[in-house]
């Protein structure tokens, strides 16, 4: 329990220390006053049962004092819980929100994004529950301790009887909790597996039925559900000791107290009145332990949430330069860059020079490292060796604010906020005037999108921009970059099949954006590639060729082969008569 309290401070640590101290103090006072009230019951009952009613009545005075103190402490404790919960909630949201925007973008790649959403949505609430759990835990320790002190003063033999059993209760709880943890984790794992199979099963229905001669998909799901059931059964058995062994220990303790009490009474060592009073005290001593079992499982959940929050907050942001340098001409340079996400290298000794105001197309098969190059320029991650320079300055020596000002990113999968089209463009430059936003929108051909939507410029685009097509989203992103007017643009060209109208609009919008800016484009369309000032061919994490389209074609190397493949694809005719191989 000591260990649990140490971990609790995780959530409490973010609240003002004064509030925490006051809260813990009133909680402690309340727990002790409860214990003392039970403690005072012993001499009171002892007198009452022995027929000394007057003396018993006198014990009512300190008892009333304890009760009154308890009321005050309880009120203060509730007020404190309210203030603390509120403070912790606000602080955690502030800190996580502020910290997230400072983390390297690379950190958000993959499944982490969903975990962070969970954390912000429910995790903080769960962590805040720590405040109320502290009450239960403090009460379950301090109330019995107080009662024990009374017991010790009144009769050491009865005290000894409970002292022998109390540690056993604690030990049994700890062991049982570990077993419960293990089976619970196994059940969670099996349930997650079954959920994944279920999503797959539902998503793959057309394919499964069109190939319906087998029950393949249903069998995979059936097995996962059966495994989930087995794990659920094991969890039932695993939780059994946790739920009942503690109770068993409490029962044994009660038996010990009862036996010792009876021996003392029948042996004539203690008066019947005193024995009964002490038995009452013993029963009350054991009662709070039952509450620990309930609090333990909630505590595990809160503790896990606190840990997850702590691990986010302790993720270091990319280091800021101590003496930030200003960016000169908007050139981009990669010099001897090595990089990998894990141990395997993704880029090796990449060298690339992009003069200010020129455009460079990155080409290569998927997995060649094209996206990684753009991510390093935007400093999603830092290189392992070599350097990425913008305007001749190492990106690590540029302040993040300056870097963000200098670079616009136009992604393939553009995220739009659930607001109007105008709001989404304005994100590029929050201070832009309505005219500037409108002008950027026209240049990116967003006006035709607005014309199509029911509320024109004020139409909401839906969560993530769902109400727009992929090509339309990319046009909004281009408008964003236009209104931001950064000298460098990193662009990932859309691969999705666009219909004719969209294709033309995106093309025109890109031409607008490229005007006078330094462009690094992950290019998929043949016209984009051929029109670039420079083409860099990536293969297996290295730049194997670079130059102009005509030069590279003439060289007859990797690029020429890639180009021929793509040309062949363009001229393709579908037929059922002959195959290229035959």
């Amino acid at each position, binding site marked *: 329990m000591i260990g649990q309290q140490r971990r609790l401070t995780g959530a409490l640590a973010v609240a003002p220390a004064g509030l925490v101290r006051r809260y813990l103090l009133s909680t402690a006072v309340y727990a002790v006053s409860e214990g003392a009230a039970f403690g005072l019951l012993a001499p009171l009952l002892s007198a009452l049962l022995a027929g000394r009613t007057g003396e018993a009545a006198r014990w009512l005075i300190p008892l009333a004092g304890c009760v009154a103190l308890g009321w005050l402490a309880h009120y203060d404790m509730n007020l404190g819980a309210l203030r603390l919960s509120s403070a912790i909630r606000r602080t955690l949201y502030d800190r996580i929100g502020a910290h997230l925007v400072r983390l390297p973008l690379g950190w958000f790649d993959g499944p982490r994004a969903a975990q962070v959403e969970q954390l912000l*949505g429910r995790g903080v609430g769960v962590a805040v529950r720590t405040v109320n759990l502290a009450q239960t835990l403090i009460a379950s320790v301090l109330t019995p301790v107080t009662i024990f002190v009374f017991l010790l003063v009144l009769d050491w033999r009865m005290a000894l009887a409970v002292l022998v059993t109390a540690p056993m209760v604690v030990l049994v709880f700890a062991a049982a909790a570990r077993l419960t943890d293990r089976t619970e984790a196994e059940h969670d794992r099996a349930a997650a597996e079954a959920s994944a199979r279920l999503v797959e099963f539902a998503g793959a229905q*057309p394919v499964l039925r069109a190939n319906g001669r087998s029950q393949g998909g249903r069998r995979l799901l059936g097995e996962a*559900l059966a495994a989930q059931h087995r794990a659920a059964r094991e969890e*039932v058995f695993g939780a059994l000791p946790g739920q009942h062994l503690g109770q068993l220990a409490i029962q044994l303790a009660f038996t010990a107290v009862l036996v010792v009490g009876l021996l003392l009474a029948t042996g004539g060592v203690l008066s019947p009145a005193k024995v009964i009073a002490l038995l009452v005290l013993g029963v009350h001593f054991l009662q709070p332990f039952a509450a620990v079992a309930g609090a333990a499982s909630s505590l595990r959940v809160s503790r896990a949430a606190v840990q997850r929050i702590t691990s986010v907050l302790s993720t270091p942001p990319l280091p800021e330069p101590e003496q930030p340098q200003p960016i000169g001409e908007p050139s981009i340079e990669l010099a001897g860059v090595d990089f990998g996400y894990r141990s395997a290298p993704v880029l090796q000794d990449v060298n690339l020079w992009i003069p200010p105001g020129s455009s460079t197309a990155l080409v290569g098969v998927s997995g060649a490292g094209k996206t990684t190059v753009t991510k390093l320029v935007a400093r999603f991650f830092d290189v392992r060796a070599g350097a990425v320079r913008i305007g001749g300055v190492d990106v690590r020596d540029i302040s993040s604010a300056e870097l963000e000002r200098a670079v616009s990113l136009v992604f393939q999968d553009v995220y739009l906020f659930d607001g109007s089209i105008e709001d989404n463009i304005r994100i590029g430059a929050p201070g832009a005037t309505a005219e500037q936003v409108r002008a950027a929108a026209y240049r990116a051909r967003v006006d035709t999108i607005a014309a199509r939507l029911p509320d024109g410029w004020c139409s909401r685009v839906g969560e993530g921009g769902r109400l727009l097509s992929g090509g339309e989203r990319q046009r909004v992103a281009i408008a964003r970059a236009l209104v931001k007017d950064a000298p460098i643009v990193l662009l990932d060209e859309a691969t999705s099949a666009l219909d004719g109208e969209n294709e033309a609009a995106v093309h025109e919008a890109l031409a607008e954006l490229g005007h006078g800016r330094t462009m690094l484009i992950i290019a998929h369309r043949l016209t984009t590639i051929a029109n670039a000032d420079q083409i860099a061919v990536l293969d297996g994490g290295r730049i194997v060729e670079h130059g102009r389209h005509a030069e590279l074609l003439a060289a007859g190397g990797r690029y020429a082969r890639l180009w021929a493949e793509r040309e062949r694809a363009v001229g393709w005719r579908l037929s059922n008569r002959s195959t290229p191989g035959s």
Partner: protein
Amino acid sequence: MSSAIWRAEPYTVGQVPDRDLAELQRPVRGRVTLAAVFQALATALSVVPAVAVVEIGRRLLAGRHDGLWPIAWLAVGLFAARLLLYAAAGLISHLADAELAVTVRQRLADHLAVLPLHWFAGGVSGRVKTTVQDDVSALHHAVAHARGDLASAVTGPVVIVGYLTWVDWRLALVTVAATAAAQGVRLRMAQRSAEPVGRIAAANAELSAAAIELVQGISVVKAFGQARAPDRFRAAASGYADAHDDAQRVFIRQRALTRATVAPATILLLVTGIGIGLVGLGWTEPVNIVAFALLGLGLFEQLTPIYSARDQRRTAVAAAHRVAALLREPAEPTAEHPRPLPDAVSPGAVLPVELDGVRFGYTEGHEVLHGIDAVLAPGTVTAVVGPSGAGKSTLGLLLARFYDVTQGAIRLGGVDIRELDRAQLYRHIGFLFQDAVLLRQSVRDNIALADPAASDKVVCAAARAAAIHQRIMALPRGYDSVVGEDARLSGGEAQRVSIARTLLADTPILVLDEATAFADPESEAAVQDALAELAAGRTLLVIAHRLHTVVAADQILVLDEGRVVERGRHDELLRENGLYARLWRAQYGDRT
């Protein structure tokens, strides 16, 4: 398009009929009731230690030392029996719950397998997961706890109040009165808390949305130089905190008052104070006070499960309703007496497909296809082209029986496909969808989906023909590599695996979407090669987006607003100088 239950929840909270919950629980009702009886008995036995102390005390004070030990051992025994009853109740109800969960989940999975395919359109995976996993889990409280907890919450206080009344009715009255007064305040608070609790829920929903937006849009937030969390998130977070604070602050005085009234120490003071008075008056025996000091204190807390049970039951009822609604979704219509296909003239010969006056609308009154006539003659290529929204893809969906025609008929070898056994239909017609869907199992099993018994040689041959064999061999475990685990494939590679799968299924007729090849531009040519291999010798229906890919088709159907406006071969259509010619010029200028 999807079923009604997802679009609108027809009931507001509290009005959802609880029939569904009772119905779902039926298979385990007996065991759940037995568990509840055990739990009620166990709760009744909880008074044993207190009663033992009081009755032993009664004898001791009377100077009688006989029968003390029997009472003590009886108490210990009964207390142990209580533990066994609790454990048995927990085991029975939880195992019943686990069994019910797996039964319901398997039933749901079976039902999903027979729902019409259009039900799955538009991505219902998340919702399916919610119903099958989360909603079934939400039944847990109703099955494993509700009845037992309620039985306890009633039995416990009844036994305690009964015993205390037998000991001393006046003191019992005082205890009950104090508890009842506090309950009254609690009830009033529960009623008045509905509104602030609703506000918290609303603020929470906004916070979740803002959190998703912050994380999904983090690159935008950062790229456009906002050094702090976006305003929406900060506003939502503080709004949520405010809602909590308001809800709490309103009740802090009442709650403090209630808790103070029924705090164990308060009741202790009350019963001992009044008890001493009664003893002084000679109206009761001192030992009776002990009973109240032991049993009178926890009465209020014992009633708590009744309150939490109400909320949890509401959750379970709503969840059961969603589960039952999914089970009630009508299954796809199956032919009651499936007709056999006519024997092919010669083995291996291909049956013709005929579209006869096909009309179709996704919703009533909105027809998308207005009478399509066409014949896919064996061994020919038919292309469907037209501006977007013309109904090209819908035609493919009808052949796959995602939907059934509303009028007219589609016939395979002269038999209406609605009268065919589905398995029969899919043995003749294969489909290649625009998105390659691979299952998380070995590459081999993915390719052999249509025929798990296929030999390794057959699987490899299909993969070779789809130009993916070498890539598969380069995977860590070759054909045994599991998709999504150690087989990480690009879009174009996944497409080629699905082409290999379709090759292995080896249906004589094939419906395919030409855009399939463009999913991964860098491997477009490789996918095209695989498609050409797949097309060889089959009857094809191609949904074409780029006209040049289908210039060699035997027949091109030009669709516009749900009608075939032109049909013929490429050069004939260009000569006609109609819609096709216009579309062609828009894409390729004057090239032919």
